[in-house]
């Protein structure tokens, strides 16, 4: 993988897919579960969005596991599959860094649900182990 930003060559499977996405503050957001392309002039494909979540990951798993994962995602949410605009990506290295914060991105609705309905109800959830 060459270093200069322009003209850099990346392989989607090797360098992008399944990489950890990290937000502006270094916090973990999600994994790159899939990528969405958009068409440019004369049929060229450009990477437009990162797709995140079980409904994005499901199709990449073969067979029953993939179907199962997708249906779990569908049962949890009927909104569109969470995506992150690729324009927010600031660096692609061993992790994919994005310029927004995790809350702004809102890419992991399940985390919020578990936090609000389970974890917040247990005393001490605001203390980092001390």
């Amino acid at each position, binding site marked *: 993988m060459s270093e200069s930003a322009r003209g850099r060559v990346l392989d989607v499977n090797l360098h992008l*897919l*399944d990489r950890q996405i990290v937000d502006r503050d270094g916090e973990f957001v999600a994994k790159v579960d899939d990528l969405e392309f958009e068409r440019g002039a004369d049929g060229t494909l450009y990477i437009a969005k990162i797709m995140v979540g079980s409904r994005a*990951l499901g199709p*990449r798993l073969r067979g029953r*596991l993939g179907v199962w994962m997708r249906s779990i995602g569908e049962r949890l949410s009927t909104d569109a599959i969470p995506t992150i605009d690729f324009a927010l990506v600031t660096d692609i290295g061993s992790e994919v860094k994005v310029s927004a914060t*995790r809350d702004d991105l809102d890419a992991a609705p399940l985390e919020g649900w578990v936090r609000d309905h389970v974890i917040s109800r247990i005393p*001490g959830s605001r*203390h980092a*182990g001390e």
Partner: protein
Amino acid sequence: MKIFQVALGILTAIGGFVDIGDLVTNGLVGARYGLSLAWATVLGTVGICLYAEMSGRVAAVTGRGTFDLVRERLGPRAGLANLIASFLVTGLTLAAEIGGVALALELATSVNYLLWVPLVAFFLWLLIWRVKFSYLENGAGLLGLALLAFGFALWKLHPDYGSLVHQVVAPHKPGTERLNSYFYYAIALFGAAMTPYEVFFFSSGGVEEKWTRKDLMVERANVLIGFPLGAMLSLSIAACATLVLKPRGIEVSTLGQIGLPVAFAAGKVAIAFLILGFVAATFGAALETGLSCGYSIAQYFGWQWGKFVKPREASRFHLVVLLSLIGAAGLVLTTIDPVKITEYSVVFSAVALPLTYFPILVISNDPDYMGDKKNGRVMNFGATVFLVIIVVASVAAIPLMIWTRAGQ
């Protein structure tokens, strides 16, 4: 201060090395085979040193956990199969450790172990929820040093050290034992020394403690000094069983029998240390396995994980840990003998080993990730040899288990 930090790390590694799998398997094997299978423990120790060093180095240089990288390298399909297998084995091990704590508490109090299980599970959860990571790791590791009671007992038995050493370096399978069971137990000992969760925990712990390249020296000292010394503890458990249980034909099936040599050779104070050691070692291992259940799933899916953030910021991670503790405790409460659970967990550990060993080996060689800290030629040679050994053990484990009916 650096010396103190290194010493603490080493002591923690020694005390933390032995878990219920090592206790049961070494005690059982010592009583039956003497020290003729000590080579398997030695082999497993060399293996875990290599494996932990690689994954610790990867964690220090990349700041990423094992399963995060496993999915990246193997892809989501193979990574998921890997995750499921590893999670199940880790869960089984967690059940074994919880059972071990409960059995140790039964030894101490004569209160039935089943009654201890819910309390133990709750206490585990509470500590994981509230206590700082380093306190958990260091506390459990240091208290586990109480198992040196076995070393003390060994010394008190005044053994013929020459004869013991001879049994180790020139192994001779007892005539009454069959060859297939002999190798079955070799794999069990190997799996007990090289438990996968230890590596998830070690590498995720490295990220928890925010290791950087500067910490590599300390990390290597922990592994290369601490683990072998911890293995000496395992061997002393086997040696005690060889000297006290084997001549009397006592076959090990309970935790109490494993502690018998200490009761026999040393005094009441040593027994108190022993029970403290049992409780600390298994409780510490339960903390590690419980956390590892959470680490593996969260890292595969890319969730925020770890104790270095507030629980509410790693909600899914903490939920997985909670559910894993409940599930594992539930398994023990079905009254299946915890010693049997342990025996199965070490064999399945050996089966699952290649799944996580292989990606770590690949990543520790990747210059894009590791830069100049990638594996050298010598390390690669040793690591590849072990890859072959691990695959052989993994493939042979289940057939041997079926053939010998789990070591009959």
